[in-house]
């Protein structure tokens, strides 16, 4: 059907899912080269704990700031045919403007480089279900065609919407290239480090008084698997990726056996900012919206196109996270 994938570029390799994907791809004999780029070198590529025969040595790391046009040279020099763009940051590691620049300008530079390239024929982009926003008048379940009721106007959701906009533009200009956009629900799993996993690891959890949001998770193993599949075969389009079913926040807290304190929304925001100041968690306005109204997506299109469903349901993914959390 499609020619054998030879050289894959993975951006955002210094973070957990990116690193795991790179090692899985490197372990695949059908792939001759895996090039990983990020702004900082990966701390350790061995975190996946897999039993591959040292595939890590095959991942070539190139330190590139995506915001600069240097990425074009990397793509041109290596005859890359598949690009997996994973470097969206969900929380401000530094300042919000830096995050936005990293996410949006970084994607623009990358896509500009892909557009000039003669060899790139498949682009996979990691996006998020945060593009649907989160509001009390949302439909209960979002499909890929749903328009957000309240367009996310800050943070990760906004960045991801803009990134998707550039991906659509790129797909229009280069119809010969297969583009796959994967909208992931919140990642969860033993090694995931996100605002949400940090929240569930806290000893005492604030919740928004009067709200019990419906949440969905996707296990990190499933996240890596769907990205791998998208990198190896043609699956054009936009797909929601979430573990089957939902958990209410109250259910999560009961399963976790943690104490929680319902606080009014303004106090929750204030606490969130305080927590961010001491570097514990970051509760941005979009996080507050999620913790109030929740968000559920339909992943049926993914199952149809990929012929595959996530191994973990939302509930079993959360339980797996809890098990390793208590083992720490």
């Amino acid at each position, binding site marked *: 059907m499609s020619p054998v994938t030879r050289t894959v570029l993975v951006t955002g390799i210094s973070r957990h899912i990116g690193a795991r994907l790179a090692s899985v791809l490197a372990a695949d004999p059908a792939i001759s080269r895996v090039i990983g780029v990020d702004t900082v070198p990966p701390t350790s590529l061995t975190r996946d704990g897999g039993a591959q025969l040292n595939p890590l040595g095959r991942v070539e790391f190139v330190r590139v700031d995506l915001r600069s046009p240097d990425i074009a040279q990397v793509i041109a020099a290596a005859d890359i045919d598949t690009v997996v763009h994973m470097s969206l940051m969900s929380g401000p590691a530094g300042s919000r403007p830096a995050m936005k620049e990293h996410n949006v300008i970084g994607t623009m530079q990358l896509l500009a480089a892909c557009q000039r390239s003669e060899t790139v024929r498949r682009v996979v982009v990691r996006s998020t279900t945060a593009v649907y926003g989160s509001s009390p008048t949302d439909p209960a*379940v979002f499909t890929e065609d*749903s328009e957000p009721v309240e367009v996310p106007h800050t943070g990760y959701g906004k960045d991801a919407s803009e990134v998707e906009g550039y991906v659509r533009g790129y797909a229009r200009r280069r119809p010969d290239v297969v583009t796959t956009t994967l909208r992931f629900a919140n990642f969860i799993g033993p090694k995931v480090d996100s605002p949400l996993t940090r929240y569930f690891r806290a000893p005492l959890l604030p919740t928004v008084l*009067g*709200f*019990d949001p419906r949440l969905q998770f996707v296990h990190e193993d499933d996240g890596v698997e769907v990205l791998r599949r998208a990198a190896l075969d043609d699956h054009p389009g936009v797909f929601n990726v979430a573990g089957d079913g939902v*958990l209410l926040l109250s259910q999560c807290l*009961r*399963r976790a056996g943690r104490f929680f304190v319902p606080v009014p929304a303004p106090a929750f925001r204030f606490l969130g900012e305080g927590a961010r100041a001491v570097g514990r968690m970051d509760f941005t306005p979009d996080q507050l919206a999620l913790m109030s109204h929740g968000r559920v997506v339909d992943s049926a299109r993914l199952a149809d196109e990929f012929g595959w469903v996530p191994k973990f349901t939302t509930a079993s993914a959360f339980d797996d996270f809890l098990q390793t959390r208590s083992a720490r």
Partner: protein
Amino acid sequence: MNAEELLTFAARRISGRYEVDEFGYDAELNDKVLLELLRPLYRHWFRVETIGLHNLPPDGALVVANHSGTLPVDALMLQVALHDEAGRAVRLLGADLVHRLPLLGHLSRKTGHTLACKEDADRLLRKGELVGVFPEGFKGIGKPWSQRYRLQRFGRGGFVASAIRAGVPIVPCSIVGAEEIYPKIGDLRPLARLLGLPYLPITPLFPWFGPLGLVPLPSKWLIEFGEPIRSDEVDPAEADDPMVVFELTDQVRETIQRSLNALRLRRGPAFFL
């Protein structure tokens, strides 16, 4: 529930090991706790009688009912009736306002309600659920005492379009009794606007008697399910043809109005019987 069942129930609830569907419906909580609170009201206060339960199709259907009573007690009683007497979990489509409110919004999801929007109605009907809707909305529930048992406009007929798209029958449902629970004889409009509410009623007991004024009057209730009206004779492609939709909407509305008139006669006086 005996003591052992109660213990396992409590353990399951405390450990969070129960199922909630994608709409946030918590069937166990609904049956064991929420409806349990409503049952005394249903059985002893309003002495609800149901008629025509055999008209409910075994599969998915859209139950369309009149709406009245200032507070949506009729929706809750319809829910008890269908759950306890027909063994069906009805999924009601609720107003934006309810879903915007803290506590109430999420409680209504747990009891199986969701937002009245095209996406949710279509999704529930596609899954073969029994869906309930009150197309009059606030115009119906908030109408003054003088307008009782007069059906208001049925919105834009969105419910009919959903039924056509899903090809499910429409079950007309007439509720008699809810009109008398809080007779609305006045409306504190400026205050309602200030609070962002569609109306703020004055009843014979409210606000004069404070919280006591929230006790509904013990009227006698009848809930009748009429013969299903087919929607699968219409081509689903015509679901956005306003002519088709309005015609079917009117048919449903007239059926309910006729049955309301007959039921009122059959019931007689609302109180002291």
